């Protein structure tokens, strides 16, 4: 491998077209092919030389990342005037463009309106350098404090849980990699030798220190206690604290036992609290839960499909708990499902089986459908849509037939709205317009007409919203989202997604605020770039689009982040957020960039379609209609 790489290095040189382009840019029109070739070789050599010198500066700067300053310093070594204007720490401001069979990178020099700059409020002054001391180790033992990294990094937890044999013999493995790297006993560099770390960690760390025991007691008490503020704090701690690895077995047992007891006692509040704990554990970026799924998944599934979750099923809103748990389930399926454990297919089977059963109660039925629906549009398409007719008939029997019981009626009502909510978005995507009421009735039976109106609503709303997105560039300075936990645990109204969790990027800075005037409602050729992607973009089903729109009436631009938490919102999942940002249409080159940024499965049109769809379903966002 190394040899291949080296051979590549040997032959890399700048293409002669670049030479031509550069010559043109300084006014030399016709450059001979030969001189181009000679130039490109010479320039490549010099560039390599400078890059190698720049590496020295990087090393002495104690960095891993080469910066433009290093290049400048290397140029200075050669008595060459440094390049000014590229003093950027974060990114290199080059743009890519192609056309006419040529591809090139260029530096975009935008025209900047001075008054814009003057009128922008000054950015905050960066904080001054400061010193902070903490204990990295106390007599050889590393204390678990937030300043220190978690005792076992997530990758290691994963390795331990998935490939336990590998961990046992770190020495052997290390030897192997060394032998493979260089034919000798002394490797030049020891990459991949992280395994050495593992051996040093104590193997069984299930004894908790006094502090950890206290912490565990406090947290669990707060999580199921009566004080909402305390609970929020505790959940926040679970979701962010890096040192919880050792307490994980206890937490998972606490949750599974808690669910078991409280389902029997029909204690809805406690079940909700426990599910929120699961959510917080899942949100913690330093924890790898796979080892504890055998306890957590049954608990979550119980909360989805249990016949009865509360004392008064006719009054209490246990539907929200089912929704929430279903979303948790979907999330864990997405994170942990592998070809070996097949979580998703096993869960799907379980749900389908009990849904198909005629004797299943409405509550369980609701849970099954919610659980399936949350798994994404593909599952809805293949498993739910074909059964809409049957389910419609069943609902019709309850709604229009003789009054059996109030509880059944409520249940059927909820199942109906659930089906409408989830199916409308999927149907809107797969069915071509126009939406014909009769056609729907023949296709979907009893639910057809209602579905039709939902789908139409979805389409119009999306169309409206798509126009409204204004042309403005937007940079997110701090991409890490902070967590806001909404406090509507119990009191949520029917249909709303009660224990919802909103992720909001903590700060948004507008680089070039260009507030559109009302007289210019829909700028032509708006382009979208999806700025955030997350792992596992294998299928289109799980994307949720969050659009950023700007109030057009005032000069002060408003950033609105749409997340799936608006009242009456129908289809949204708390898993992936996209921030859709529109770019000025003048950047003609961005077309190419876009296609490379987007996940492969989404081409431009479905993206916009999906956008529209999302819009149409969120009446909350329609308050800023441009007209």
């Amino acid at each position, binding site marked *: 491998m*190394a*040899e291949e790489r*080296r*051979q590549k*290095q*040997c*032959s890399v040189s700048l293409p002669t077209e670049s030479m031509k382009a550069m010559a043109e840019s300084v006014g030399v029109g016709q450059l001979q092919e030969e001189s181009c070739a000679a130039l490109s*070789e*010479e320039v490549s*050599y010099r560039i*390599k*030389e400078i890059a*190698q010198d720049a590496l*020295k*500066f990087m*090393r*002495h*700067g*104690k*960095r*891993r990342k080469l910066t433009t*300053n290093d290049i400048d*310093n290397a140029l200075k*070594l050669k008595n060459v005037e440094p390049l000014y204007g590229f003093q950027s*720490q974060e990114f290199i401001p080059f743009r890519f463009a192609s056309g006419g069979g040529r591809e090139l990178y260029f530096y975009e020099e935008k025209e900047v309106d001075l008054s814009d700059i003057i009128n922008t409020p000054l950015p905050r002054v*960066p*904080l*001054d*350098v*400061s*010193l*902070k*001391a*903490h*204990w*990295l*180790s106390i*007599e*050889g033992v*590393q204390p678990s404090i937030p*300043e*220190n*990294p978690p005792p076992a990094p997530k990758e290691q937890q994963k390795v331990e849980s998935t490939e336990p044999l590998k961990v046992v013999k770190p020495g052997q493995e290390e030897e192997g990699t060394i032998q493979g*790297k*260089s034919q*000798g*006993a*002394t*490797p*030049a*560099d*020891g*990459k*991949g*030798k*992280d395994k*050495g*770390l593992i*051996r*040093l960690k104590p193997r069984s760390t299930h004894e908790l220190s006094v502090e950890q025991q206290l912490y565990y007691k406090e947290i669990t008490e707060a999580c199921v206690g009566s004080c909402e503020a305390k609970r929020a704090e505790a959940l926040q701690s679970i979701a962010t604290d890096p040192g919880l690895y050792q307490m994980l077995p206890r937490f998972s047992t606490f949750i599974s036992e808690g669910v078991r007891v409280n389902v029997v006692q029909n204690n809805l509040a406690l079940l909700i609290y426990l599910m929120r704990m699961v959510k917080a554990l899942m949100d913690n970026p330093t924890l790898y839960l796979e080892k504890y799924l055998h306890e957590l998944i049954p608990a979550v599934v119980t909360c989805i499909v249990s016949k009865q979750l509360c004392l008064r099923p006719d009054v209490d809103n246990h539907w929200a708990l089912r929704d929430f748990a279903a979303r948790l389930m979907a999330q864990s399926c997405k994170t942990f499902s592998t070809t070996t454990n097949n979580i998703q297919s096993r869960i799907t089977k379980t749900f389908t089986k009990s849904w198909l059963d005629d004797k299943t109660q409405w509550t369980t039925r609701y849970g099954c459908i919610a659980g399936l629906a949350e798994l994404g549009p593909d599952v809805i398409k293949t498993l739910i849509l074909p059964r809409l007719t049957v389910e419609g008939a069943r609902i019709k029997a309850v709604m229009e037939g003789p009054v059996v019981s109030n509880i059944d009626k409520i249940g059927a009502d909820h199942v109906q709205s659930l089906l409408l909510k989830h199916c409308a978005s999927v149907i809107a995507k797969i069915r071509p317009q126009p939406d014909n009421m009769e056609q729907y009735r023949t296709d979907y039976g009893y639910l057809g007409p209602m579905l039709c109106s939902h789908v139409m609503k979805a389409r119009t709303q999306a169309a409206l919203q798509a126009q409204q997105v204004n042309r403005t560039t937007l940079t997110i300075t701090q991409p890490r989202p902070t967590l806001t936990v909404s406090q509507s645990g119990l009191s949520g109204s029917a249909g709303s997604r009660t224990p919802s969790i909103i992720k909001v990027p903590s700060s948004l800075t507008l680089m070039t605020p260009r507030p559109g005037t009302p007289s210019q409602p829909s700028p032509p050729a708006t382009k979208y770039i999806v700025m955030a992607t997350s792992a596992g973009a294998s299928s289109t089903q799980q994307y949720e689009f969050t659009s950023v729109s700007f109030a057009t009436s005032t000069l002060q631009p408003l950033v609105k982040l749409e997340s799936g938490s608006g009242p009456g919102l129908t289809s949204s999942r708390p898993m992936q957020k996209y921030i859709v940002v529109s770019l000025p249409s003048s950047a003609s080159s961005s077309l190419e960039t876009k296609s490379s940024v987007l996940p492969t499965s989404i081409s431009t049109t479905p993206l916009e379609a999906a956008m529209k769809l999302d819009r149409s379903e969120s009446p909350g966002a329609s308050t800023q209609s441009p007209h």
Partner: protein
Amino acid sequence: MAAVQGGLADTNEEKDIKTEPSSDGFGNNNANDGRVLSTSPGSSASDQQTLLAVLQFLRKNKLTESVEILRREAGLPEDSPELKGSDSSGAGSGGAAGSGDKEGGDASSLLSRTSSVTAAGEDQPDVNVVLSAYNQQGDPPLYQVYYSGLKKFIESVLDCHRAELSQLFYPLFVHMYLELVYNNHESEAKAFFEKFSGDQECYYEDDLRVLSSLSKREHMRGNETLMDFRTSKFVLRISRDSYQLLKRHLQERQNNQIWNIIQEHLYIDIFDGMPRSKGQIDAMSGSLAGEGKREANKAKVYYGLLKEPEIELPLDDEDEEAENEEGKPKKKKPKKDSMGSKSKKQDPNAPSQTRIPLPELKDSDKLDKIMYMKEATKRIRLGPDNLPSICFYSFLNAYQGLTAVDFTDDSSLIAGGFADSTVRVWSVTPKKLRKVKSAADLNLIDKESDDVLERIMDEKTASESKILYGHSGPVYGISFSPDRNYLLSSSEDGTVRLWSLQTFTCLVGYKGHNYPVWDTHFSPHGYYFVSGGHDRVARLWATDHYQPLRMFSGHLADVTCTRFHPNSNYVATGSSDRTIRLWDVLNGNCVRIFTGHKGPIHALAFSPNGKFLASGATDGRVLLWDIGHGLMIGELKGHTDTIYSLRFSRDGEILASGSMDNTVRLWDAMKAFDDLETDDFTAATGHVHLQDNSQELLLGTYMSKSTPVIHLHFTRRNLLLATGAYNP
């Protein structure tokens, strides 16, 4: 022009010798034997060579007066022309002619090279001298045949010889490639490179990368790596048997091309005895110019510590009694005794007290020594069962880039050098930093009062940190003076600056390095300091001289880190040429060359007893060296990225290493040094058997949270302080 002639004459002579290669091999060896017995004749011969080279240089630049003075001082006869001199010395030492002459030639070309740095106009002839050796025309397509023929031969020999002869691959490859390039066979050169570059050891990858970009004769001008290959001979250590085998093969095959390269560009250090194993060779190879010559490490090094000055401890008794009440009387007594005996007995390996003139102790220094001893009595004894606590000082919001850190010896101040050219000093004790009052205000104070030292300080300026502005480039090196009155900083702008920590102003800017100065370090006794930079030269300075006292030149690439020996008589420098050199401060000689690292060296640390040196490099390995014997004695593997900091605990039991991979690791230094097998054979031949016991020696790994560890410091009580900038 003299230099040119000299160079040509040398090559002519070398060709003469080539005609009878067998005698050369024997001769070489005889000379080596002679040097083992007594080092003086060899070194004096080479001294003379150097002198002649200097004379040549001076004459070339028409500095007749200096020539006269130098000649008078060296006691050379007036009329002896230097070429004759070298001839006669060559004849005198018999078979050593080859090596001796080559050294002479090297010295002159080296000198002319340094001169070319100052006077760019002379670049042209110099390069031609350097490259002239490549002028011989071989048949370019045959190069591949030659090389693969040799490869086949080496692969077919007995295992014990194969490892040794494999060392030839890399230097031969490089020189054959350069020859092809020099003679404008670009496509052949490329093909040759592509065919064989994959065979080379992975630790040469950096150099190969440089070579690969070099494909035209024009590029060779001004390429430093190329200069290194040409001006310095690649040194190989090969056992006699293996060497004979190789020679026989080449003679049988009439493979003159390869034989010429071996003669001209390689220095083969032949030793008697068993051929070395692959592991032994790999441990020592990796440097830019092969291993160090054995005789280079034969000079005696006075690694012992200087005698501590006798200081009355007036307060000590009281203090000790007070502590006895605290309930740890047992530890105190024996320690005090051991310390007393240490200072009484003169270490036989120590240099004489006056070898290097050291500054006299001031009253404040004595007070500090007393403080030090007091603290030392409270020191924690470290060991595998008693690991130090580590306190981590994170630099927050250091967006501009933290590039260097130093602590004062008493751990009261931290200084940080930043990429935005600033130097910042923090006080980590509650005592704030204060400036001295202005001159006008100083006139007003009562100079007779007892607390005059307090009174001169300006309370209004008290703050936790101070910023020192003055550099115009990133600050790469920083060092406190032992008395905490001064701070040194070295920067990309080519200067070393001395700052006063009383007034927080710049006192001196030492200019001499024309290129970035990568590191600087104060002598443990103050007054002297050393700096090293991109110009490949380390310089020794005294704070009151604006010009350097010594220039240590010999490294083939940037001097990346510099360190003073605890007895201030020696300086260690690490370099990008992947060697460590130890220099004698007294005469500026290089007394040790340590090879074995596979990447640029970024950290050095002397053990507190002065016997050992630890070094860390970008390859993530720590190597341990015995200074007295000039041997590698240990290899500590574990880090996965550049090691930027190394530090021994105050008693030398624990070695701490800090790295770019965000970890601090603790190693059992006592065990590493105890396990040492120092029988006479290894000492004489310099062949080391390294056990792979890094895992046993590793006592602890402490991961920081995305904070590369760039500096470590043991407090006087053996608490380990680590620093780095937090990179979220």
